[in-house]
């Protein structure tokens, strides 16, 4: 530390401070930046011309078999658009490093949007490029892979695999189905309720889906539901709703809720850290649940379903005999993880470390063997989720969200304190950000952009966070399926169900999310949050 600060200026002109510079996009600046980067575009033009020339020359070579136009358009876009994103970002006043990362992010999103490679590849491309360029040090760029999330994902996926392979989920679901009334609505409510119960304990919709997937699979098998029919798709929608709908409703239901809470003023953090979050979100929570229960029988009409083969099921149960050691271990692991997660506040061991203990138990007891560890864990999904985590950390490191907030500046002054307009703005910003970013990063980026707007407009900051949390679960395109749809696809569940009607259900729930937020306005007024 320096005791006295007496540095004196000797000579030189006054240097403009960053605040004196006027950020913001202008056509002239865009053209200037474009011209100053002409070698990049010359290289791209050379590549395109070479590709076109080679394609023309080799026309008769037998490699002329047609491929979807979408693929060719996608690769062309990946080649051309990211450099333009870089130029646009630079011309908009973003720093060089933020502009480069925006371009990398652009390439990543295009690879996702056009489904040009497997889902986990684009995130890896961005992480590797970040390291090569030196945009972020390895401890940041690879932080996702060294975070506790790795243990959580490994543990939960392993547990989920063992619950299926041991036969535990089949046994439990068979017993449940034999006891419940033989009606689709009860089967769906079972899955919805299970997801809701897991939500406050497990702040990851993907982890919840992993635990519910074996239950869904065995339930569908036990009920003999016809493939691609409304009944099995309705059941899938119920599982998806159970895992996802409650995410924004409690602070611990979504990791980005916990992160966003830390961005709020101290006293607001204290107020919303516990049960009051759920109280303030009550109208929305009841609203989405009601809509879900109402639309499910309409989108997936139950129709005539064969009666449950009770006798056959009872025979199967009898054949299974008493619980096998693997089932005991799987059940013990599940209960240990569930109870451990619920009592974190008491023992202070994070759920991810508990998942690590469960993983160890499964491996040490031989319940999960080397082959199972290789085959039954969804490694691409784990790499995808950890890669996304790393991307978010790189964004934070580079201050990309803060740069965006600065560039947006006073664009939203027209809100003028009107809550309805603010909700619409939150919707637009969150959806725009979610076009590019996954759920967690998308929500947090939207919050960082919108919190200053909320503060300037006299709107309660929690409302801003809550709206972003609800709207970030909305998805329209395939690459936006980080809310769980991507995981459902990766697990192959769409092969047995009607994907189109499931996506129709998702669209209805998208609209429901917007509606319930607006419906919450009087409730927030009554709670004196407005």
């Amino acid at each position, binding site marked *: *530390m320096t005791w006295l600060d007496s540095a004196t200026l*000797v000579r030189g*002109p006054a240097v403009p401070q960053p605040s004196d510079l006027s950020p913001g996009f202008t056509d002239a600046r865009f053209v200037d930046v474009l011209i100053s980067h002409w*070698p990049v575009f010359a290289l791209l033009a050379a590549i395109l011309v070479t590709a076109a020339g080679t394609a023309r020359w080799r026309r008769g070579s037998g490699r002329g078999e047609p491929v*979807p136009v979408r693929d060719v358009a996608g690769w062309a876009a990946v080649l051309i658009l990211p450099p333009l994103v870089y130029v646009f970002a630079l011309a908009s006043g973003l720093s060089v490093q933020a502009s480069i990362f925006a371009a990398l992010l652009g390439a990543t999103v295009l690879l996702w949007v056009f489904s040009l490679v497997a889902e986990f590849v684009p995130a890896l491309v961005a992480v590797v490029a970040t390291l090569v360029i030196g*945009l972020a040090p390895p401890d940041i760029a690879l932080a996702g892979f060294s975070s506790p999330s790795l243990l959580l994902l490994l543990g939960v996926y392993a547990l989920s695999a063992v619950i299926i392979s041991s036969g535990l989920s089949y046994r439990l679901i068979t017993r449940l189905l034999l006891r419940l009334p033989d009606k689709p609505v009860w089967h769906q409510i079972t899955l919805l309720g299970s997801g809701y119960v897991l939500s406050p304990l497990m702040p990851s919709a993907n982890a919840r889906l992993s635990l519910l997937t074996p239950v869904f699979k065995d339930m569908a098998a036990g009920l003999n539901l016809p493939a691609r029919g409304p009944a099995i798709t309705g059941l899938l929608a119920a599982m998806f709703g159970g895992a996802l709908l409650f995410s924004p409703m409690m602070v611990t239901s979504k990791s980005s809720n916990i992160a966003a809470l830390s961005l709020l003023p101290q006293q607001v953090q204290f107020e919303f850290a516990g049960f009051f979050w759920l109280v303030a979100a009550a109208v929305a929570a009841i609203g989405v649940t009601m809509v879900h229960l109402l639309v499910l029988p309409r989108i997936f009409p139950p129709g005539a379903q064969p009666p449950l083969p009770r006798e056959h099921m009872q025979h199967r149960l009898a054949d299974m005999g008493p619980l096998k050691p693997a089932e005991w271990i799987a059940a013990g692991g599940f209960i240990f993880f569930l109870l451990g997660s619920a009592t974190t506040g008491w023992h202070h061991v994070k759920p991810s470390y508990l998942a690590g203990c469960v993983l160890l138990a499964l491996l040490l007891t031989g319940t999960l063997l080397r082959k199972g560890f290789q085959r039954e864990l969804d490694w691409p999904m784990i790499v995808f989720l950890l890669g996304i985590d790393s991307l978010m950390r790189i964004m934070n490191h580079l201050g990309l969200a803060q740069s965006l907030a600065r560039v947006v500046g006073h664009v939203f002054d027209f809100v003028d304190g009107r809550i309805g307009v603010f909700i619409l703005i939150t919707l637009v910003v969150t959806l725009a950000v979610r076009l590019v970013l996954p759920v967690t990063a998308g929500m947090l980026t939207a919050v960082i952009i919108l919190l200053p707007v909320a503060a300037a407009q006299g709107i309660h900051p929690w409302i801003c966070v809550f709206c972003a949390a609800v709207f970030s679960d909305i998805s329209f395109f395939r690459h936006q399926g980080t809310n769980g749809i991507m995981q459902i696809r990766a697990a192959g569940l769409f092969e047995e169900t009607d994907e189109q009607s499931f996506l129709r259900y998702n669209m209805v729930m998208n609209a429901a999310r917007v509606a319930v937020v607006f419906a919450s306005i009087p409730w927030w007024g009554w709670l004196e949050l407005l």
Partner: protein
Amino acid sequence: MRKPVATKLVKNLLIGGFIVAFVVLLGVFNVTKPRILVLHSAAPDSPWVQQVDRGMREALKQNRRPVSVEWNYLGLGSPTATRSTEEARAQARRAIEQMNPDVLIAVDDEANSLVARDYIGRETPRILYLSIDRTPAEFGYADAANATGIAERMPWAAVRDAVTDLFPGRSTTMAVVGIDNETDRAELAQLQAFDWGPVTVETTALVATAGAWRDFVGRSAGADVLLVLGAQDLPDEDGAVVTAAELNRWTQDNARPLPIGVQGDFVADGGGLSLSPPPDDYGQRAIRLALDWLDDRATPGPPSPVESSHFDVAVRQAPLAQRGIVLPPIYIEAARSNGTLFP
């Protein structure tokens, strides 16, 4: 029949094009990203150098812009240095040619007088001098468009105030000892140009051996204060090397006058009091200035040169108590907040 445009060949060519563009653009970006070379006068094991580097690394941690930074050490300044000046200079010049840095941060007087000043007037490297004790004009930097930096002003006023506080109501005499190298010669020149009244600077010596150091400390017994410019490893009569730390400790234990250091490691080695330029702070500020200079968008042009008279206070209480010295509380608290208050 018209052939389809979207064929496997076109798709493969586009994928190949993407990979080529990806690799080429990343490669070009890496090759063209700004480069900074830090050239130290002393060796990497010198405590001063290590603390300057620590400050630099701290500032680089805060930096988000991709830059390549490399370090080079002349290893001069100590009479026990094994390399010849010419050898060190040639090696540094080769490092500069090889790296072709955008900014050369030259730390202390030797790096500037032997290497950095040769690049005056060139487009690259831009010269950022750091902790020089002679004036920038003496190196030829005054009118150079490609030179700026931080010149060191030794904290003589603070030393004088401390001496008058410790020996109130009487005229005080001071002896000065240092190493016969460029930095200490420049510091001594600054010291001799300073108005010390009411303190009288009686004798000064820049030495090259441990024996000469001990002799001078013995001869200065009549002074009230012994100012230690900065110890270095010195050769002894028997050919052994007396380390800087041993020399500092010996001086504190054996000097009759009160020793005051002007290097931070004096107290860390066992000395009682030092008022020294802050190496961490220098390192941080040098990197910030270099990054500012490299940023043509927000702050075009070279940053303004500065003279720094910042200083750190370091106190070791036991040796001061042995001599019956009671420091004003402000020194103790300054050292405490700096993390340099020793028991």
